[in-house]
């Protein structure tokens, strides 16, 4: 569970990139975070993960504050950043072992999880090559595997489908569903509304730093009383501000 409590952030004086954001991602749900570029999506995600310090407010992961108890909070989520070009000089297996160690994955489980995850995403046979030699899609996959290796309760994914081929995309979505069925939470941002509609239990749309909508897709359609496509709804919501 992730609770975002009245969080704000300004980069430039008097201009709030994120303005008093309040949001709760409940256990058992897949939550989609949408919004045009520059709306505050990335800033929000960075604050949740501890990369950015909010000016005001707090964020709790499973009850642990990211500001006052960062280490405990960070143990409880796995994060997939939007840039998968990470540690290019490490071999895939070295990267995974490294993360397994940081997140304290019990030894007996390590081999099993690494094998399962990498075989599922079909990068098992590339583990002995450096991440530099991977294509963009493969890098994305290794980062995903790394984030999931500790089986964290909360998954935070920043545009995870970009660059993924359809099969891996499908596998990831299935994993997200399975994960939330077990009572865990998945929070991800995406540009592909289609995916969001079919996958998410609830969505939040952020525009110019403020949350302009939170709820299910049915609720969105009801609220805006249009039988139009999701994309048109989205464009309307974000352009009308």
């Amino acid at each position, binding site marked *: 569970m992730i609770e975002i409590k009245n969080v704000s952030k300004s980069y430039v004086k008097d201009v709030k990139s994120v303005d008093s954001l309040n949001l709760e991602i409940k256990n058992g749900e897949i939550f989609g975070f949408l919004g*045009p*570029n520059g709306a505050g999506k990335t800033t929000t995600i960075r604050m949740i993960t501890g990369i950015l310090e909010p000016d005001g407010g707090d964020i709790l992961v499973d009850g642990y504050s990211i500001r006052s108890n960062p280490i405990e909070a960070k143990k409880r989520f796995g994060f997939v950043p939007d840039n998968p070009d990470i540690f290019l000089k490490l071999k895939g297996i070295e990267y995974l072992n490294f993360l397994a160690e940081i997140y304290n994955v019990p030894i007996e489980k390590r081999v099993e999880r690494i094998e399962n995850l990498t075989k599922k995403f079909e990068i098992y046979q590339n583990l002995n090559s450096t991440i530099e030699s991977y*294509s*963009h*899609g*493969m890098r994305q996959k290794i980062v995903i595997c790394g984030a999931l290796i500790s089986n964290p309760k909360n998954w935070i994914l920043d*545009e995870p489908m*970009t*660059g*993924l*081929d*359809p*099969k*891996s*995309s*499908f596998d990831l979505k299935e994993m997200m569903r399975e994960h939330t069925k077990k009572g865990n939470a998945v929070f991800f941002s995406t*540009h*592909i*509304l*289609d995916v969001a509609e079919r996958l998410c239990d609830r969505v939040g749309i952020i525009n110019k730093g403020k949350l302009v909508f939170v709820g299910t897709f049915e609720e969105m359609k009801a609220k805006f009383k249009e039988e139009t496509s999701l*994309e048109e709804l*989205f*464009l309307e919501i*974000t*352009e009308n501000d």
Partner: protein
Amino acid sequence: MENNIILKKVSKEYKDFKLNDISFNVPKGSVVGLIGENGVGKTTTIKAILNIISSQGTIIVLGKDNKKYEQEIKQEIGVVLDDSFLSDYIDIKKIDSIMKDFYKNWDSKKYFNYIKKFKLPKDKMINDFSTGMKMKLKIITAISHNPKILILDEPTSGLDPVVRNEILDIFREFIAEDEERSILMSTHITSDLEHISDYIVFIDNGHIIFNLPTEELLENYGIVKCKKEEFEKIKKEDYIKYKKEKYQYEILVNDRFKFKKIYPINTIDRASIEDIMLFYIKGENK
């Protein structure tokens, strides 16, 4: 000549990957979408058409062999590949002055009109553009010499819906302006293809799995969900692929109306392009 591009048995062999007897056409006035997993041949096919790599087989572009008439053909093609532009250190005006000399049909007026329309900064270097702006610029540059064919490799990857929409609009305008034109684009984002392509060519492991009109895929294809007993009663020629799930079977059919008339199963849904692809990749044969 009905087709702008004809590929006949195009093959290319690399150390650990093979492109096998690829044959398909890009008709005039149409948008053809290429989908497939990474590393299975989409980009290789595009490069073969452009003669950036050598290949076996025949490729006819605008009625001419693409190897013999490479220069002429290139005058008539606009290309957007998934990498950096000519140079990161030039600006919009410089591109105009360069392209003017490269392309006989370069239309400066049109180019600058588009630049204005999309509010691209005239005084910054390309290096300083955002990803969305770079892509718009690449596309504008590709169409400003009035090419007959537009070839794109992953043009909308990583862009937000607003920008993607603008880009798809550019494509629609491009086709509408001249019925002799075609677009060939490869992408992952199947929802974009559903919006804009007339045909979809699905490549997997170097082979063409299907090459069908989009409308047929979206309208006629369907997914049937049924139990094991019901599945066993279905004749093999009435479906394409099936998947065995935990409590039910899922079947891909290519004519859901016909199927419904024959079999009394209620759960037949439309199929999205993605569903269809996944059936072909993960599903089992009869």
